[in-house]
C-alpha cells in the first residue's frame, strides 16, 4: 500500500526512469540472447552438458522462488515437483511413446497437479507445519518411485528414449541446449509476466500479511493455489528436461540432496528475484564443476554460503544487483 503512495508522489520521475530502464533492459536482453545463441560454438561437449544443467536449474530456481520468495511459504516439495516432472516425461515417452513436446507438457501437467496437491494443505496449515508436510510428501513420492516397479521401473530407474531430432545440430547436447533454452526463456518470461500481474501482487500480499491481504479482498486460497500450481508447472517442466538431459531417471535424484541444492540456489540468488535465481543457478551448478578437484566439500561450501547469505546479504545476489544497478531492479522484489 505504501508503495502506491510512494509512486504517485514521484510519478514523473518514475515514468522517465522506468522508460530508460526498459530500453536499457531491452538492449541487455538482446545482447544476452545473441550470446546465449552463440554459446555452443565456444564450448566442448562436456561444457555444453554443464551449461544445459545450468539452464534446467535456472528454471527450477525461478519456479521454487515463486512459492518461497513471492508467496513466502516454506515448502520443501520442490524436489518432489522436479521428480514428478522427470518421471512424467520419461514414463510417457517409454510407456505411451509420446513425442517429446507432449511428454514435456505431461511433465508440466504432473508438476501442476503435484503443486496443487501441496497447495491444498497449505490452505490449512502454514509455517513449519507446511514445511514438515511437504518434506513428508517429497519422501512419499520417492517411496512410490521405488515401490511402484510395474510403472516406474523401481529403484534402479529407467532410460529415457533419445529423440532423434535433438541430434540434428551436430551433437545431441547442442540440440538439447537450444530446446532447453527456448523452454526456459518462454517459461521464465511467462513467470515474469505473471508476477507483474495482479496475481503476482496477490502472492506478495499473502507473503507480507495473509490476514491483511484477505481483508483487502485478495483471495488467499486462490493466490496459493495459483502460485503452487505454477511453481509445480515450472519445476515439473524442468524435471522433464532433466530426464532428457541425463537420459535416465532414478528415484535417488530427487531426495534431500536435490532439495538442498534447490534451496541454496534460491536463497543465494535471492528470495523474490528472478534474475537472482538465474544467477544463483549458474553459480551453484557451475561451481562444483570448476571445483571438481576439491571433491568432498560441496555440502560444506553450500551450507557456509547459505549461512553467509543469511547473515550478510539476506536479499541474496538479486538484492545486491537491485542495489547497484537500478535498471535491473525487479518490481516485486522483496523490500
Amino acid at each position, binding site marked *: 500500500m505504501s508503495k502506491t503512495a510512494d509512486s504517485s508522489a514521484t510519478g514523473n520521475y518514475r515514468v522517465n526512469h522506468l522508460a530508460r530502464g526498459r530500453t536499457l533492459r531491452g538492449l541487455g536482453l538482446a*545482447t*544476452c540472447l545473441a*550470446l*546465449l545463441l*552463440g*554459446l555452443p560454438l*565456444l*564450448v*566442448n*561437449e*562436456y*561444457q555444453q*552438458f*554443464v*551449461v544445459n*544443467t545450468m539452464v534446467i536449474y535456472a528454471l527450477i530456481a525461478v519456479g521454487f522462488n515463486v512459492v518461497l520468495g513471492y508467496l513466502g511459504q516454506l515448502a520443501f516439495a520442490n524436489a518432489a515437483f522436479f521428480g514428478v516432472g522427470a518421471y512424467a516425461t520419461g514414463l510417457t515417452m517409454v510407456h505411451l511413446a509420446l513425442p517429446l513436446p507432449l511428454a514435456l507438457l505431461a511433465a508440466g501437467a504432473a508438476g501442476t497437479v503435484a503443486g496443487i496437491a501441496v497447495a491444498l494443505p497449505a490452505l490449512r496449515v502454514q509455517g513449519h507445519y507446511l514445511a514438515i508436510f511437504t518434506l513428508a510428501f517429497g519422501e512419499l513420492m520417492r517411496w512410490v518411485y*521405488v*515401490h511402484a*516397479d510395474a510403472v516406474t521401473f*523401481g*529403484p*534402479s*530407474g529407467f*532410460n529415457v528414449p*533419445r529423440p532423434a531430432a535433438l541430434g540434428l545440430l551436430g551433437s545431441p*547436447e547442442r540440440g538439447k541446449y537450444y530446446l532447453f533454452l527456448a523452454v526456459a526463456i518462454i517459461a521464465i518470461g511467462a513467470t515474469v509476466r505473471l508476477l507483474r500481474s495482479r496475481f503476482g501482487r496477490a502472492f506478495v500480499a499473502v507473503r507480507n500479511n495473509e490476514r491483511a491481504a484477505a481483508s483487502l479482498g485478495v483471495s488467499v486460497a486462490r493466490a496459493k493455489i495459483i502460485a503452487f500450481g505454477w511453481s509445480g508447472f515450472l519445476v515439473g517442466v524442468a524435471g522433464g528436461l*532433466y530426464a532428457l*538431459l*541425463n*537420459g*535416465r531417471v*532414478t528415484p*535417488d*535424484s530427487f531426495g534431500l*540432496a536435490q532439495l538442498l541444492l534447490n534451496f541454496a540456489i534460491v536463497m543465494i540468488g535471492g528470495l523474490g528475484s528472478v*534474475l537472482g535465481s*538465474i*544467477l544463483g543457478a*549458474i553459480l551453484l551448478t*557451475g561451481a*562444483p*564443476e570448476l571445483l*571438481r578437484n576439491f*571433491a*568432498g566439500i*560441496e555440502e560444506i561450501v553450500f551450507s557456509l554460503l547459505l549461512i553467509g547469505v543469511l547473515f550478510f546479504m539476506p536479499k541474496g545476489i538479486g538484492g545486491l544487483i537491485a542495489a547497484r544497478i537500478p535498471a535491473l531492479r525487479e518490481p516485486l522484489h522483496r523490500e
Partner: protein
Amino acid sequence: MRRTTAIVLGALSFAVQSTGCVNAQETTSSPPIKIGMFAPLTGSAAFAAKVAYGASSVYKDINDHGGINGRKLELVLEDDACDPNKGIAAVKKLTAQDRVFLIHGGWCSNVVLAIKPEIERDNTLPYVVLGAASASISTPVTANIFQPVATTQAVANTMVDFALSRPDVKKVAIISHSDEWGKSHLQPAIDALKAHGLTPVETVYFERGSTDATSQTLKLRAAKPDAVLAVLYPAELAIYLRDAYKYGVRVPTIGTQGASIEDTERRIGIPDAVRDLYIFYPLSQTISSDQFKPWAEIFKKYYPAEPIDTITFIGVGGALAIADVIKRLGPDVTRERFLSEMNKLTNFDSGVQASTMSFSPLDHAGIKSGNMIHLVDGVPTIVSKLSTPKP
C-alpha cells in the same frame, strides 16, 4: 551476467583446449596412456572411494616400475557422488576434455546405467566397470563395456547354490533392502531359486537406516525357513542378525558381499548370533592372509590415510586385467586393438579375485562366481559348503 558466464566459459574452453595442445606436443616421444576413472569420492557412497584408490594404486605401482612397454599411465580421477547427473558430467569431461584412452570407473550401478547410452554412442571408447555390480550393465552385451567384477547375478547365483548345498535346505526366505542395490540382487536370487524349482517362502523388506527388525524377523520366523538370504548392508545385517537371534530364527543366513564378518560379530557382541552366518566374498583369500600382504603395502604407500578393507580390492582385478591387455598390445596401443584383445581374455587370474576372468564377444560379465566366508573358531575362513547343523 550471462555475458560474463559466456565469456568465462569461452575462456575456460580455450584455455583447456590450448593446454591440451601443449600436452600433445610435449609428449609425442612416449605419450602416456590416459586412463579415466570415476567413483563416488563424496556423498552417501563415499565409503566406496577406496575402490578407486585401490585400483589407482595398481596403476601408480605400474608407473613406479617403469610403466607398460615403456609407456607411463596417466590417471584422471573424477567424482560422481553416486549421482547420475554428476556421473554423466564426469564421463563427458573424461572423453570430451581430457580425451582419455579408456575409462575404468563406476561403483554405483545407477550412475553406470545412466552413462551406458553415452558409452554406447561412442562405441570405440573402451569402458571397464570399476565395481558396479548390476547385471544389466553387461547383459545384454555392449561391444565396449566390460564388467570384470561379480555381477549381482553372479552373487545371487553363488548365494543360492551355497544355501542349497545342504540337501535338507528346502525352504528359503529373503530379507532385502528395497533400494537399487537390494532389488538388483533380489530378482536374480528369486530367479536362481526358481531354476531349482523353489520360490521364497517369505520375502520381507528392511529399509536402510532402520534400527529395529522386529516385524520383519517375526514374519520370517512364521515362515519357518531352512535358510535366509540377507541382501543387507553391514549395519542392517547386524541389526537383523541380532533380532533373528533374539526371536529364535536360528537357521543359516547367507549374506551378500560388503559386510565384514568380524565387524558384524563385534557389533552384535554375541558370538552365537553369527554362528550360522555366511557372507559372499569376492576375493581369493582373506585380506589378512600372506597373499594380500604385498597389496596392502602398495596401498599404504600411495594412500597412507585410507583404511584397507575388502572393498579396497574390488577394482584391483579389473586394473590388472587392463594392464595385462595393454601390455599385450605392444607398441601399437589403439582402442580397436584394446577392445579385441579384451574380448580374447580367457581365464585371467588376477590372484586377487575369487575366480578367474574371461570375456568373449558374446559375454562381457567376466566373473561368474565368488567365495563364501564364515567364522570358524573366530577366524574368517573361506568355505565351500554350508556346514551341517550343529546340535
